[in-house]
Structures are given as structure tokens and as C-alpha cells.
């Protein structure tokens, strides 16, 4: 199979998720060729080099001012062109707001199959087979594609980026756009103050739920996050109560995260939340209810009041030698 990996970047820095997908493609048994494509306002030289280090042999670079805003439709134009010209039979995406929209738009443009929420992929008898969990991950489907290019949208955080030190050939792509792709335009962007610190890329996430008790309770989550060098997340219920901003929401209607460490404070573990964090390597949950569902999928289940346990934990972390040198956000 000939795989094209769509690599996303934010202001020239690759997203961890899309580099992970590229690494997976590079390690895929049965992949005859792995190329990457990146689009943006340019210059994208460093981005191209990084894709080479993660296993792409060719990096298609579409640099054009109209690709500066994170809008999907001009990207569909770029991808259609690259897929057709390079005769790619598989296109991989990492899930994100932009990635999902672009993938579905490309599926319609090419009349191609799109399988989403995949956690892995393999080549079986020369054909791509995707692995898709469903029903709150109680079942794992094998999914396939018929005809046309196979479009695969991977669950965020399914793969770790692993540089293998290659070098890619950079292939510029002249940007031509369909008329309808240019109609939406960004008139203003408001970057959040914690720019770049997307919780999706953080190595450690400290998340709070209704068990924190109030908006003030989230100061506890922030202090713990500061002490372990992590970002703060929140459940939908806590966000709905106005205790923490929506952009920090982890779950079905928020972000999907897969940090090395996820610390859940006062979170019951509703399915809505679970789907956003179940890929975390290590899950530590602190909840005073011994029957909280979150304990069923935690590695370390702590039955206790967050208002007692967490301040004690913060004090111990701060008392460690060298604690002051812990960077605020190692994931950024």
C-alpha cells in the first residue's frame, strides 16, 4: 500500500498526534511507500524535515497564504491533488477538529470510504484493515474499505511519535483551489492565553470533576498540575457548572487526551468522560465514592476525599529535592 499521512501543525510546530500517526505508518508491515503532506502559509522547511525524521520519504508541501487559517475546505483541494498525482491508495489522519472535517470532506470529494476513531491498522492480503473500538470500547471491530483510496482517521493519541532519523524529499505542491473552498474566511482569531498548551499534547493531565465542589476547587487541580508539570482538564459536568472553561473539557464532547499520566480528581467516570481519556498510559483516580465507575479503568484507585488527599500530595511534591525546577508544561 502507498500511504499518505496528513500532518497537522500549529504555527510551524507539528502536533504530537499527527507525528504519531506518521510513525505508525512508517512502521506498518506492508507499506510500500510512506509520504507526508503538510499545508500552511509557509515557510514549512522545519516541518518537512521533522516529517522526514519520522519516516516519510517524501513530504508534499503546500504553502499558500490561503492555507494559513485552519480551515478544512482548501485542504481538501490540496489532498485531492496530491492523492491523485501520487496515486496513493491510503490516506491517514489524526483526529482533531480540522482533521475530522478535512477527512470527511475528502471522502465526499473522492467518493472514498472513511473509517474513523481507529486505534490501529494493519495490512492483510495487501488490503488495509482498521481497528475500531465501539460500544464504550467493549468491542473491537475490524473495518475495511472498498474501491477508491482508504481514508483512516485515528483516535487522538493512539501512537507515540518515534523519530527514526530519515530524510525526506520535499515536493512543493502548487495550490489550486475550488471556488467553493475559498468562500469561508477567518476574520479574526483569538488565541487562548495558554497558547500551545493544548491539553491533547500534554504529557500529564490533572482533571477535575464535580467532586471538586466549586470553581474554587479547581485551584487544587491547578496547583497539582503545577507541581507535576501538567495541564488541567475538566469533565463536562464541571464545565457546564461554569467551574472551568470549555476548552479544557475532556470527553465525548471535548478533547481526547492520551498523556503518560492522567490524574482524575473527584470524577465519577461517566462514559462521556471515559472516551476522552481512556488512552492515558497511567490513570490515577481520587474519589471518595468507592463505587465510582472510574475505578474500573484506573491503574491506581484512591478512595478518599480530594480535599484531604490532594493538598497533602501537593505538599509532598513541593518538598521533593529539585521540585522548583519542574517545567510548567513539558508537553508544550
Amino acid at each position, binding site marked *: 500500500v502507498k500511504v499518505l499521512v496528513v500532518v497537522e501543525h500549529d504555527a510551524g510546530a507539528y502536533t504530537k498526534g499527527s507525528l504519531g500517526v506518521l510513525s505508525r505508518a512508517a512502521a506498518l508491515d506492508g507499506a510500500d511507500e510512506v509520504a507526508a503532506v503538510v499545508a500552511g502559509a509557509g515557510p514549512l522547511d522545519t516541518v518537512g524535515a521533522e516529517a522526514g525524521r519520522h519516516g516519510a520519504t517524501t513530504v508534499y508541501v503546500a504553502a499558500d497564504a490561503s492555507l494559513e487559517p485552519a480551515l*478544512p475546505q482548501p485542504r481538501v483541494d490540496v489532498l485531492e491533488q496530491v492523492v491523485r498525482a501520487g496515486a496513493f491508495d491510503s490516506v491517514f489522519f489524526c483526529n482533531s477538529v480540522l482533521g475530522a472535517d478535512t477527512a470527511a470532506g475528502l471522502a465526499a470529494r473522492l467518493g472514498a470510504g472513511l473509517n474513523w*476513531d481507529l486505534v490501529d491498522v494493519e495490512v492483510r492480503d495487501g488490503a488495509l484493515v482498521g481497528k475500531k473500538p465501539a460500544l464504550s*470500547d467493549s468491542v473491537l471491530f475490524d473495518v475495511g474499505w472498498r474501491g477508491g483510496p482508504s481514508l483512516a482517521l485515528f483516535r487522538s493519541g493512539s501512537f507515540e511519535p518515534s523519530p527514526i532519523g530519515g530524510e525526506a524529499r520535499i515536493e512543493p505542491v502548487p495550490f489550486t483551489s475550488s471556488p467553493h473552498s475559498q468562500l469561508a474566511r477567518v476574520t479574526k482569531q483569538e488565541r487562548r492565553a495558554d497558547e500551545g498548551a493544548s491539553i491533547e499534547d500534554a504529557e500529564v493531565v490533572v482533571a477535575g470533576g464535580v467532586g471538586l465542589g466549586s470553581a474554587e476547587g479547581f485551584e487544587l487541580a491547578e496547583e497539582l498540575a503545577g507541581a507535576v508539570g501538567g495541564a488541567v482538564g475538566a469533565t463536562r459536568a464541571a464545565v457546564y457548572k461554569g467551574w472551568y472553561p470549555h476548552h479544557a473539557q475532556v470527553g465525548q464532547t471535548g478533547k481526547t487526551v492520551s498523556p*503518560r499520566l492522567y490524574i482524575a480528581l473527584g470524577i465519577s467516570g461517566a462514559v462521556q468522560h471515559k472516551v476522552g481519556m481512556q488512552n492515558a498510559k497511567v490513570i490515577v483516580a481520587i474519589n471518595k465514592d468507592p463505587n465510582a465507575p472510574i475505578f474500573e479503568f484506573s491503574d491506581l484507585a484512591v478512595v478518599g476525599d480530594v480535599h484531604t488527599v490532594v493538598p497533602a500530595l501537593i505538599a509532598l511534591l513541593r518538598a521533593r529535592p529539585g521540585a522548583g525546577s519542574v517545567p510548567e508544561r513539558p508537553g508544550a
Partner: protein
Amino acid sequence: VKIAVCVKHVPSGRVRFHPETLRIDRTGPGELNAFDKYPLEAAARLAEADGHEVVAVSVGAPAAEETLRTALSLGADRAVLVSDPAAAGSDLVATARLLAAALAGEAPDLALFGQQSSDGGGAALWAAVAEMLRVPFVSQASELTIDGSTLRVRRETEYGDDFIEAPLPAVVAVSDAINEPRYASLKGRMAAKKKPLVVLTAAELGLDVTAVGDAGSPSEVLAAGTPPTRTGRVTLDDEATAAASILEYLVDRELV
């Protein structure tokens, strides 16, 4: 201005798969996808302010009529159901063909979607539909206004908010941060029973049956298996020593 709201009839309660077809079992009771209440509310508010017409559109089994009646009780003026045995098993692309054909027939200025469906379907159906209609689209809309023939949207992304403008006609998927959906009033439910609802087949939309349903779907489910589970859980239930034990656990695994 005419607004179409695309809604989905989803299984009530737990979603199950049919063991042989590996499709979602849709034989049980169903209801309006909860996330579709947000675009319905957004459309109702726009209509109340400026007298727009609101059409609810759905692709589904005949039972989806029930969901369209719910949509009518929440402010839609009339409803269109695309229902055809030949369309069963449609994947994202085939469903988008059906929906795009229905929307092309209605020619709305604005087509609204909810941000997701509770039965796990449709990663970004709106994007496929907009592409087929060759119109601009915006997803994750947390604010939405119509100014003459211009659409203005505030979109939430991972990094911040984008303010986007597009000319109508356009497609917008709204997030659940956009409003607080209303509950259907008794009056609304009564009125819904009398509002017009038409049912259309794929052929009536001008679609070839080989372009929809299982035959028209370029993706497929091959087999079902069991996923790996998390093992080796440690439980701490002494609050007094918990903090020290957590720290030890994290240090041992080089997590701090």
C-alpha cells in the same frame, strides 16, 4: 431565509450491534439524537427573531418519523424524511449522498447539524454533505448569526476561537456550547402532530440505488472482536497515608 436542520433518529439507551450484520441494531425504541437539540434550538431562535422557515431533515428507517415529530415540537415548521429499504447500511459517504440530495431539493440558505450522534455514527457528516453541495461549511460553532446574506460564526478549536464569515448558502455544525435547548411544550407537541411531514425514497431524490445503502458504501465492517483491557490495578483506601503512597507510585514509574 430558509433553515434546514439535519437530525438523526438514534437508539434509546444502550446501543447494540446485530451479531451478524455488525450494524447498529435499530429495531428497538429510538429518539432524537440529543446533540441535535442544539441546532434545532439555534434555528428556532433565528426563526423567532426574523421569521425564517425551519425544515427538519432526516435519513433513516420509517421509525425516524417519531424523531422528526420531536423536531417539529421544538420549533421546526415542517419535516422531510428520506427513508428507503435500499438505503439501509449506508456509511458516511452514502448517507451524505442521501442527505445532500434531500437538501438540494429544499435549497435552504443554511443547513445546520449537531456536533455528533450518540450512536457513534458520522465523524463529520456535515463536511461530506457540504462538499457534495459545493458550499462553505463551519463546524464547532459556539455562536451563529445571519446578517443579510452573510453567515457569521464563532468556532471553537483546540487553540482558541476563530471568527468565520461565509456567504449563504452554507452548512454549519453547532457545538453544545451554543445554547441551552428548550423542552417541548404541550402546545408545541400538539402543534407538531399537524405540521407537514413528507417521506421520500432515494429514487424520488434522483439517486441510483447502487449509490446508497450497503452497495453504495465504500467502507465496511468486517468482523467483531474483544479489545484488550487494563490490568493490575492498585487500590488505596487509607486517606491518611494516601498522598505518600501516590507519590511513591508515581516516583516508582518515573511519572514525576
